[in-house]
């Protein structure tokens, strides 16, 4: 097993662990980025992500970078909306330029990259099935190609970053759904309890109590469940619920 293959295996094992426990996404991306840079003998790299690909216009954010040099270049790329990373994200394809000094490809990005000492760039799309969520960008000081094995390994690291991010998003969505469910289940109980409180304090029938709370909620632009919670919690007095046109029972 080569050193590169060992690193890949180790990261795969790490991934298996992170899939079952909470982890720091930024930390994970940093490690993957470091491995990808090493795989191509690079001088630095960055990871860009589209936080919400469904929203128009699609915006990219810089999520990780190996150093300040790369960070400033990637930010520049985003601000000018021009460069290999941006193109890789848009095309959903690998975008390589092995000879930046001789290239006329990105009139704004290229001079900035050369100024920082980067002579070749390799941008890898972060995609899973049809979905492109970002791009991983690698920079080298030399104007030189990278061998196919190294390219394959770097793409694998980009793929692992994709899986990690999508995993975390799914987990966050699941947590939100669970919280919504718990909240909605609890609301039913609180609303019935509040009816009882008003039935006792004001002398309402249960349905009258419900209507009174609905009226109050609409009138004060509140959610019914919040009104009910306040009734049960005691912060809303029963007297508040008599409508102006309603006589006391």
């Amino acid at each position, binding site marked *: 097993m080569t050193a590169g293959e060992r690193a890949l295996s180790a990261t795969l094992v790490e991934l298996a662990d992170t899939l079952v426990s*909470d982890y720091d996404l930024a930390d994970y991306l940093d490690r993957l980025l470091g491995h990808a840079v090493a795989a191509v003998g690079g001088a630095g790299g960055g990871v860009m992500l589209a936080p919400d690909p469904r929203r128009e216009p699609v915006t990219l954010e810089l999520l990780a970078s190996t150093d300040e040099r790369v960070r400033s270049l990637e930010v520049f790329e985003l601000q000018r909306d021009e460069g290999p990373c941006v193109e890789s994200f848009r095309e959903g394809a690998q975008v390589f330029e092995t000879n930046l000094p001789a290239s006329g490809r990105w009139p704004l990005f290229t001079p900035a990259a050369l100024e920082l000492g980067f002579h070749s760039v390799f941008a890898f799309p972060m995609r899973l099935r049809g979905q492109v969520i970002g791009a991983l960008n690698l920079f080298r000081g030399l104007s030189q190609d990278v061998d196919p094995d190294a390219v394959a390994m770097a793409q694998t690291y980009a793929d692992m970053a994709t899986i990690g991010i999508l995993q975390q998003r799914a*987990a966050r969505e*699941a*947590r939100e*759904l*669970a*919280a*919504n*469910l*718990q*909240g*909605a*289940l*609890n609301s*039913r*109980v609180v609303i*019935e*309890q*509040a*009816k*009882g*409180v*008003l*039935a*006792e*304090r004001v002398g309402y029938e*249960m349905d009258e109590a419900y209507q009174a709370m609905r009226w109050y909620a609409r009138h004060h632009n509140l*959610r019914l469940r919040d009104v009910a919670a306040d009734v*049960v919690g005691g912060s809303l007095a029963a007297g508040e619920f008599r409508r102006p046109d309603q006589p006391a029972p």
Partner: protein
Amino acid sequence: MDEHRLERIYAAVSRRDGTPEPFHRVQAICRACVDLLPVTGAGVMLMAERMHQGTLYATDERIQRLEGMQNSAAEGPCIDSYNLGRPVLEPDLAVTGRRRWPLLAQAAVDAGIHALFSFPLQLDDTSVGALDLFRDRPGPLTREQIDDARLLAAMATREVLDLQASAPSGSLPAQIADLSGDRVAIEQATGMVAAQLNSTTLEAGQRLRQVAAQQGAALADVAYEIIARKLRLD
């Protein structure tokens, strides 16, 4: 993750229902429990605020009655599994179960439930409910069967969340939107008693259960009396 177990369980669930719709999948998961495991019935309960909030689906109406019993007794394996975030297994309610849940065990045995296994529907450190399995005679689950049940509970969790995702924001899916009539009465009576005693609803609920136990009556029956203003607790 044991891939063979995964395949076997998925196959069992698919045999029970081919459609990907979440509620049907919950039904299929419950039926697959009865197919695969030595249990008489299975059900998925939803829970919030340390209480049963409803039965999403059960293969046997004794599961629903179990929910009512646990709410009345304010104790039970499903409540425990939900609060502890791990399976609660009781292979013999009449003997060892009696020590763990003195109020619940008798009511359950009277209803023909002799063993109960509750697996929380777990998401990280929160729980949204439980997959409950019961036997009409005592007896344990094997290690293998427990692992199968854990996987089925994980699948049920996924389907419950998918079901919630299908409901408009802030509300419940149609299948769990309505509280049972008894449950409505109990909560309304709790509110009335809280107002009568000038107490919290927690204290009011405890008082209600106390009165029901003293009278040897069902909690719901006492609740109906209170709502009809035939009984006051102050």
